[in-house]
């Protein structure tokens, strides 16, 4: 441990309350910085009810596939995880001693990297909770900013992750009510698209949901002449490319006419963006000979959805597709109105693709810090999955992280913050709520499950599929659930004479 400290003199965070020792000059530096804050107390004294904070890789002794997170005590013991000098995932060759990258390599959490995370948690605690102390939070965050090199190309995985979260927290401090809308994304549209494609190639997170939902849709509308898809968040339209291909390749029965209606939520530019997506999809469909049409439906100014806004053609099978990405989720009320409206339209099938959080947490009790840590874990897992799959492509990963994941992080943190303020209960974990509204679970076919497994086979080994309810497949990286795709339908109306349940 001493060796570690010598090599990074600028890292002057004191050790946690467990065993690491620090050299004398570091203590001096520490005091120089701010004498009135007792750093030992700040970073060393963590709440005893720290919910199980797992670094997905720290607990490498997990048997693969174990879904239970470790108890908090274990996580705390890992704080004094000694840094190792032999690092199989090192991005730089080692000559003597651990280089900076190694220390922060996400696959081998060192005490240095763990400390970054601890500081983040401390800042989150300071922002929220019983003793709110924005000043303290700001101090911590500024400190974090200083520690992490701003040139992201030189920083390591964990440093970049910590930097994104730091910025997200700072945005909360600066603008508590509308934090993520001002997130500075210097990325141009072109950059976003490139990064999106890279992410699509590097991780199954994008394809998994799309392919699973599409397969379920295909099975549900088999034999129909017209299919109408109502898409809550069309994104870049990638999902429908493979659906169009699948429809056209069905062979003997002629391909059904496909109509897509995309909802736009009124954010500036979203309508034109959706139009552009429509153009692309039309061009693509034309290139394969699939009859296709596209239109946009705007949510009203209060972001609510009314079924009447959708033009429904007789004899078409309606499908509703919801990709719930927290960054784009405008409000829970909007989503609720959408789903209730969807019931009114009686779709053949409704597919939901959403993010998953660690199941053991009871959502109501977590508070901001718990949710914040959940998000940190989630992105750690994503970071790790990218790094494990593509260890040599640091630049590419950095770009994807900055352009795509960073805004998501900011939005997730902002949402978590909004919730703890007594804001709306996020409806994005729809499962139980759906049953209440009247949807029933539809079973996923073995074809679908098989397809998902094969898809994962194209990517790194660490990905797995969970199927805990018959209508839902969850994508998991090691022990952390990332995404899930679930399928719902409406029960058939009981009999003509009985009253319709809506």
């Amino acid at each position, binding site marked *: 441990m001493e060796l570690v400290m010598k090599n990074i003199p600028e890292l002057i965070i004191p050790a946690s309350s467990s065993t690491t020792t620090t050299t004398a000059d570091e203590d001096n530096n520490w005091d120089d910085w701010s004498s009135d804050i007792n750093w030992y107390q700040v970073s060393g004294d963590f709440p005893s009810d720290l919910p199980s904070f797992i670094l997905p890789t720290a607990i490498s002794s997990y048997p*693969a*596939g174990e879904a239970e997170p470790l108890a908090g005590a274990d996580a705390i013991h890992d704080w004094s995880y000694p840094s190792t000098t032999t690092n199989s995932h090192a991005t730089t060759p080692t000559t003597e001693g651990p280089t900076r990258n190694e220390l922060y390599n996400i696959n081998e959490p060192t005490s240095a990297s763990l400390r970054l995370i601890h500081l983040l948690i401390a800042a989150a605690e300071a922002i929220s909770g019983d003793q709110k102390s924005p000043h303290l939070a700001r101090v911590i965050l500024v400190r974090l900013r200083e520690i992490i090199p701003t040139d992201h190309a030189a920083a390591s995985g964990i440093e970049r992750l910590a930097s994104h979260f730091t910025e997200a927290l700072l945005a909360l401090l600066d603008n508590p009510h509308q934090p993520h809308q001002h997130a500075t994304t210097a990325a*141009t*549209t*072109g*950059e976003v*698209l*490139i990064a*999106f*494609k*890279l992410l*699509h*190639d*590097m991780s199954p997170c994008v*394809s998994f949901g*799309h*392919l699973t939902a*599409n397969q379920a849709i295909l099975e549900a509308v088999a034999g129909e002449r017209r299919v109408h898809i109502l898409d809550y968040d069309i994104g*870049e*339209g*990638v999902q429908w*490319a*493979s659906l*169009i*291909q*699948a429809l056209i*390749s069905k062979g003997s029965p002629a391909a059904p006419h496909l109509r897509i209606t995309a909802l736009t939520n009124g954010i500036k530019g979203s309508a034109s963006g959706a139009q552009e997506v429509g153009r*692309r999809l039309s*061009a*693509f469909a034309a290139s*394969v000979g699939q009859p296709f049409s596209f239109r946009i439906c705007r949510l009203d100014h209060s972001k609510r959805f009314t079924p009447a806004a959708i033009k429904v053609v007789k004899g078409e099978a309606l499908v509703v597709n919801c990709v719930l990405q927290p960054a784009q989720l405008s409000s829970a009320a909007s989503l609720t109105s959408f789903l209730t409206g969807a019931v009114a339209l009686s779709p053949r099938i409704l597919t939901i693709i959403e993010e998953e959080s660690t199941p053991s947490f009871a959502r109501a009790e977590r508070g901001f810090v718990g949710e914040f840590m959940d998000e940190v874990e989630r992105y750690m897992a994503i970071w790790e999955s990218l790094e494990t*799959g*593509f*260890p*040599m*492509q640091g*630049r*590419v990963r950095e*770009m994807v992280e900055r352009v795509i994941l960073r805004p998501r992080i900011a939005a997730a943190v902002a949402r978590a913050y909004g919730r703890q303020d007594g804001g709306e209960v996020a409806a994005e974990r729809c499962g139980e709520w759906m049953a209440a509204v009247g949807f029933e679970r539809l079973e996923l076919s*073995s*074809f679908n499950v*098989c*397809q*998902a*497994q*094969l*898809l*994962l*086979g*194209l*990517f*790194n*080994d*660490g*990905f*797995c*599929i*969970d*199927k805990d309810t018959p209508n839902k497949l969850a994508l*998991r990286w090691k022990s952390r659930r990332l995404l899930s795709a679930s399928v719902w339908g409406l029960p058939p109306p009981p009999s003509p004479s009985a009253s319709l349940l809506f």
Partner: protein
Amino acid sequence: MFSSKKPTMNSHERPPMCVQGDSGLVLTTDPKPRLRWTVELHDRFVDAVAQLGGPDKATPKTIMRVMGVKGLTLYHLKSHLQKFRLGKQPHKEFNDHSKDALEMQRNAASSSGIMSRTMNDRNVQITEALRMQKEVQRRLHEQLEVQKHLQMRIEAQGKYMQSILEKAYQTLAGEGAMTATGSYKDLQNQATMNLGAMAFPSLQDLHLFNNDQLEISPQLDRPLEDFFPSNETLCLGKKRPNPYSYSNGKSPLIWSDELKLQEFGSHEENLKNNIDHEHLQIAPSIINGGMEMESMADVYEAKPLMLSVDSNGEKYEGSSKVGRPSTPRRATVSTPERMSPMIRGGGLGQTRNLSYA
């Protein structure tokens, strides 16, 4: 030595219970008369025991009652029963041959029940094995179907993304400064090559998963090796060269952070330039199929990666370089020591690696 036996003793229809004491017992002519357990007497004994539910359930008293043989005392029966219990196996087999049809008619008696069950078990096992093989075959076919469709869908996605990128590329060329476009070209080259590299070797690997993927019970290890005809039928090839605009589809390029910036042109040109590089290697991470890293460290020639399927869709051919990585694959695929059962739903990565151990 047989005393007068009842005519019914060896017939199939044995009168159920009481055998009258007509059959005299055979006694030895020793000074001390000892009962001689003749074959017949023993058969009756066994029958009685069977009726009573087996040697463990039968007691001398009940046996005596059931047998109804005069002169048979409890002591005779006790010792005989004890011997019978100890030596049940040999006696059973003996009974087997002589009494087997009769035994079949008795139900619920343990020894005969065991006898008949054994024979039935064998039949059952055979049908069971056949059924399981059919099931495996069905799943194999389903997997092939899924693979085919998955491949087409992934290609469609890729094609769509490519069209998006081209537009983005144009906008970048319009807006950005030279350095910006330079670095974006760089990244885009990486992106397209990435997809090419991923699409092709990875999709080649799809056929490998046939063997690894199946959820088979461990009992079927051995039969399945015979059952899988050979690699060829499991292979999934593409029917035609890549129709999409990936010119990099011609070879699975590598990916390195140190790409030289290319002249701005169509990106087909860029990629052709890259193809000419000397130092191409496959980044191990791209090939998720578990191919040995060492075998992939060669320089790939710029040959089209054509996976062709012949008319009956069963042959797998690769281009020259591809033949090389396929070799380790064949070796491992055809001789899995054990068709690793699925570890969990989705644990296929682990099973795949097992076969490459």
